[in-house]
């Protein structure tokens, strides 16, 4: 049921809408066919989550969860319900420094069940086209699951369509570039973080225009 609902929402409604806004998604066929995997992307706009959800393989879509800040999307029960219903999110407490132990346990449990996580390690949307420092939560998760691949995604121009703090959508050409699934090599948190970051930045050069 949930698969049908999300498939309708993201395949039938969201994909054409994103295309009209000018968002082009490349190489999404490189996504693993089966979970668990972790998608990591840079973050400039609410549309980032929409574009990622619209690219997930159909059979997996109900098992793909964008991870979002509870402070923002879970201000009250109603909002929290809505974001789960429409975006399939997992809400966690956003920490500025050390990752929240309880949040990590929740995400860990999802990965063990074979679900996929969509993570924005920058934490918030920030200034358009500028990469902010990565939070370490993603590295902790990958360190615990070295057998789970991560898929880097680089997005460009999304902040021009719907920037932080704006309510109107203005069409603009934007690009979403999926990379190959990677496995981490290192066991050290800061080195894992660098691996993830470099994998995302490497996609910058693959962007066609």
């Amino acid at each position, binding site marked *: 049921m949930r698969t049908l609902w999300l498939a309708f929402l993201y395949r039938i409604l969201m994909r054409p809408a994103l295309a009209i806004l*000018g968002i082009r998604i490349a190489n999404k066929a490189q996504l693993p066919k089966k979970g668990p995997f972790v998608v990591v992307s840079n973050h400039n706009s609410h549309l980032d989550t929409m574009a990622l959800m619209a690219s997930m393989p159909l059979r997996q879509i109900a098992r793909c969860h964008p991870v979002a800040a509870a402070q923002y999307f879970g201000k009250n029960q109603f909002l929290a319900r809505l974001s789960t219903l429409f975006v399939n999110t997992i809400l966690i407490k956003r920490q500025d420094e050390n990752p929240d132990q309880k949040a990590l346990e929740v995400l860990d449990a999802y990965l063990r069940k074979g679900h996929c996580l969509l993570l924005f390690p920058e934490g918030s949307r920030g200034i*358009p086209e500028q990469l902010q420092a990565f939070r370490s939560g993603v590295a902790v998760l990958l360190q615990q699951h070295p057998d789970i691949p991560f898929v880097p995604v680089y997005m460009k*121009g999304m902040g*021009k369509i719907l*920037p932080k703090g*704006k309510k*109107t959508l*203005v*069409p*603009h*050409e934007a690009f979403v570039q999926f990379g190959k699934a990677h496995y981490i090599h290192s066991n050290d948190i800061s080195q894992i973080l660098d691996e993830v970051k470099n994998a995302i930045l490497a996609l910058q050069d693959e962007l*066609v*225009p």
Partner: protein
Amino acid sequence: MRFEHLTAIHQMLLVILGVLVFASCLFWIMGRIQPGPQVTELQTRTRSWWMMATVFVTAALVHPLITFIAFGFLSFVAFRELSRISKNARPEDRGVLFWAYLAIPVQYTFAYFAWFDAFLMFIPVVMFAWIPFVLVLKGHTQDIARSMSVIPTHLMLTVFSISHLAYLLSLPELKGLEVGGRGLLLYVVFLTEMNDVFQFTWGKLLGRHKIIEKVSPNKTWEGFLGGLISTIIAAFLLRFLTPFSAFESVMAGLLIAGTGFVGDVIVSAIKRDFGLKDTGTAIKGHGGILDRIDSLAISAPFFFYFVYFLHYAS
């Protein structure tokens, strides 16, 4: 059934089909004799032509409303492409672009209901004032003059000019011309695109003397003149789509070839300014949408007023 017994539209469809089949066969044979990246590129381009021709013919012939929506969408995509490649847009211009996009359905509505005066003045008068005014209201004057000139120019190139193609369908019926505006639409689009192909082909075959090397290194006098003569011949042969006399059709060919060239080099120069070869990757082998309609951006309004003053203005 003989060719002369078909309606003008069907004759034109056969011509388009013939050109595409000819090109496909030619490049297939060339690929067999002498394979190479150049032939492969020509084959990719031809395949894209098949697709574009199908979309265009469907949009032009199914129902007038579909034609207007399709051309409105074409303007939209071209404007979107142009505003991405213009790197000097400021973040503050976002709100203004919103108004610019809104202008597209308004302009095409005027065209659909044949409100000629509103159609004519909306972008050059109303939007020309409204866009700078909204920019002023934002209050940032740094580099504002550039945005004031760039955004209305983009609207003129992609919306005002292309909407003239759609307006051809809103022209009143002429006595003795059964095809009506659709014939004119097929005529100007086919000839403008063929002129690009002719210029490209003659340039490859004979090109020696560059016209404006710094802007467009592939443009040669041989290509331009070869294209001009070929287009004039095609314009003369296809005059059954138009109310033109033989002399008028020759002039129309001259006009389309000349203004098509002007549009082509204007967009080339814009691309040069932003350091690009093609405006995008939307059409395989052709670059972006803009690379395909750059010539039309100038030839469409010129052709429109040419036929308008000769046959429609009383």
